[in-house]
Structures are given as structure tokens and as C-alpha cells.
């Protein structure tokens, strides 16, 4: 399992801040999105605006994800 944290508008649309998803060994970040969008279809329209982090650092679609990792779904940041 991996832990997925959602923030800001993504948490709002999904109606939750944290979910667990099943993921095989050797998976990539790209494989997480379809699972997430299936579980929370209201996230789908945000896809192109989102960034992702794995274990607290920005990650790309082809980066590996392992069981136990923490993935964060990051809408466009708006601090300041």
C-alpha cells in the first residue's frame, strides 16, 4: 500500500485528505493517477494542474514508487 496525501483544492474536490492505494512493487508515479481518479472522479478535471511529490520531494511521472511511500497531490501552490 502507498499513502496518498491531498492538499488544497485537491483535498476539497476529493472530499478527503488522505487515502491508501494498493500498488505493486516496481510501479511508477504515472500508475498512481488512474487509481486515484477512479477512486475520486471529481479530481479528474484537475489533472493538468497537479504536481506530485514522493516522500516530500517533487517527482516526475516515470519516478519509481514503492510500498510504504508517501505520495502528495499538489495543486498549483499559492503561498505568500
Amino acid at each position: 500500500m502507498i499513502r496518498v496525501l491531498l492538499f488544497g483544492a485537491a483535498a476539497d474536490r476529493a472530499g478527503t485528505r488522505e487515502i491508501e492505494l494498493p500498488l505493486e512493487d516496481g510501479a511508477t508515479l504515472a500508475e498512481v493517477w488512474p487509481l486515484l481518479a477512479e477512486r475520486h472522479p471529481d479530481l479528474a478535471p484537475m489533472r493538468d494542474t497537479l504536481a506530485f511529490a514522493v516522500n516530500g520531494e517533487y517527482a516526475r511521472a516515470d519516478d519509481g514508487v514503492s510500498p510504504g511511500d508517501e505520495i502528495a497531490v499538489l495543486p498549483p501552490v499559492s503561498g505568500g
Partner: protein
Amino acid sequence: MFTIVDDPLDVGALIRDAQRPGCGAIATFVGTTRIDESEGAVVEYLEYEAYRPMADRKLEEIGAEIEGRWDVGYVSIVHRLGRVDPGEASVAIVVAAPRRGPAFEASRYAIERIKEVVPIWKREVWSDGYVWVGSQVGSREGVSAKP
């Protein structure tokens, strides 16, 4: 000092902390909640949240970038979370440097980088609903996509 806090910022104390005998300039940037108006509604307050500890680490990285680029003696960035009422400070950046040029430039750089890379989000709470800034998701009629 690079930190994220839940309480009001004491900007005066942050400036005093920056004073250095070797520095002839302290530049300070303070971001504050502004009351916007549109469609007969007004912003009542802003509400911030962060992904920690990634956000803390990104603030430290901005500090390291500044020290690599400019001759500065001290940099601090403090960001507040939670509800921030009109006129109150959400972020304070204080840069002390031997000379004013680098102090001004580095403080400007810090706020621009915060808006690019630090995982902090704000929600505008209006008199007629709310909007997540940057995502346009919220409950305001005609202004935002419904969550």
C-alpha cells in the same frame, strides 16, 4: 530562520533578529491579506495550509539559493498558516546584507520563489463563498468550479 507558524507574525522582532554589525541594509517584505471586491462580495479572510515538512525544507532551500547568489549576512522567511485576517501578515522575509542592492534583490527573489515551489496553499473566504487561489475550485457562484 526558516519556519512555518500558526500564530501572528512579530515583524519587528524578525527585523531585530536580522541586525548585524557587518550589514548596512535590512530589506523586509511582508505579505498581507488584502480585501478584494467583486460581484458585490468581499474577501473576509484568507486561510493557508501547507504540506509539511516539505514546505519547511523548501523555505530552507530558498535561503540556500540566496546565500549562493548574493552577498548576504542573514536571511529569514516565516510563513503563517490558518486564518489570516485583512491587514495581517501571512509571510515575512527579512534579508540583511552589507549593501542594499543584494538585500532588495534577495528579498524579491524569496517571495517569487515561495510562489513557485513551496507547497503552501491559500483559500480566499468571501462573503458569498470561497475559492482556492490558483485552482479556481470553490463554492463561489460563477467564479469557481464546484468541489
